């Protein structure tokens, strides 16, 4: 039986709302990390696009320069912009459905800056919805052993779920 290469490290499904979710003591035994989330922003209404200081799912709790750029479709047009910080996804607020996002963090223990990728969908059967892809950069050559997720002061609603997987290349 081959050893597993795609392993669940930790998960968290919220039974009470929370302002942030933290993954700590991440083992260094994997090559890449994959984070899959399904969440609702309890402080927002409807679907909202990620924007500096307004809305968005954001990686926090890391030290170093962070930046990103993204491409977004809203059902009628595509656009691109950039934000300082690790903004990963648009959000669905209360009354909408959950936002789904996958975040890929390769070579998280390598002594080099870390490129980060995400792909998310905030669909609500409404006139506005978003699908976005993000390219981000975390400039720190230290291994990532912990990080948090937040919603810029809003809370994750009950039922929001977070799954962190480790991926081995051998």
């Amino acid at each position, binding site marked *: 039986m*081959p050893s597993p290469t795609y392993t669940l490290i930790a998960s968290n499904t919220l039974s009470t709302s929370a302002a942030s979710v933290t993954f700590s003591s991440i083992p260094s035994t994997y090559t890449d990390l994959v984070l899959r989330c399904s969440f609702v922003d309890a402080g927002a209404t409807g679907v909202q696009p990620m924007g500096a200081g307004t809305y968005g799912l954001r990686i926090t709790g890391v030290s170093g320069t962070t*930046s990103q750029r993204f491409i977004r479709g809203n059902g009628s047009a595509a656009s691109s912009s950039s934000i300082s910080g690790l903004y990963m996804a648009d959000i669905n607020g209360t009354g909408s459905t959950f936002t789904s996002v996958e975040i890929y963090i390769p070579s998280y223990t390598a002594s*080099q*800056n870390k*490129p980060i990728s995400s792909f998310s969908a905030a669909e609500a059967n409404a006139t506005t919805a978003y699908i976005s892809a993000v390219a*981000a950069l975390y400039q720190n050559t230290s291994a990532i052993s912990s990080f948090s997720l937040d919603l810029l002061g809003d809370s994750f609603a009950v039922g929001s779920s977070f799954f962190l997987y480790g991926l081995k290349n051998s």
Partner: protein
Amino acid sequence: MPATYEPIATTTLSSTATSITFNNIPGTYTDLRLVFIPIGSASMNVDMRFNNDSTTLYSNTVIYGDGSAANSSRAVSQSRIRLTDYVNVSSTPTLHIIDIFSYAGSTNKTCLIEQSMDNNGSGIVARYVGLYRSTSAITRIDLLNLVSTNFAVGTTATLYGILKA
């Protein structure tokens, strides 16, 4: 018995190189996933070729954004699938995740390519769909840097096999 998601081969460059090759890919999986993180020191085009086939059987369509505008383009009858053309900066890795579907089947081969390159003020985010109009099984993948600059030390590439059952 192969696992559902299994590493087939991995490469981390300890010296510079103009290409990375995965050869003798077994046909025992359903799909392939290639995680490729090139590092460069100057302008660099990154291309992908299957089965060492340089005929014009490749095409791709891309949607991309540079942080200020979104665009889409297409290339047809190419001798390779262009993964990216950009000015890369030393120590800033770029992430490519490439899914190659039904690579061992007898139909034309499609792939989805995710490119993430941010350099804190410049860069690109892109999603490609690629087509290789060959009914032969893919047994070899070459990642090529077709300009004079090499892939730098620390460049990594890992090929995974994904099994449907």
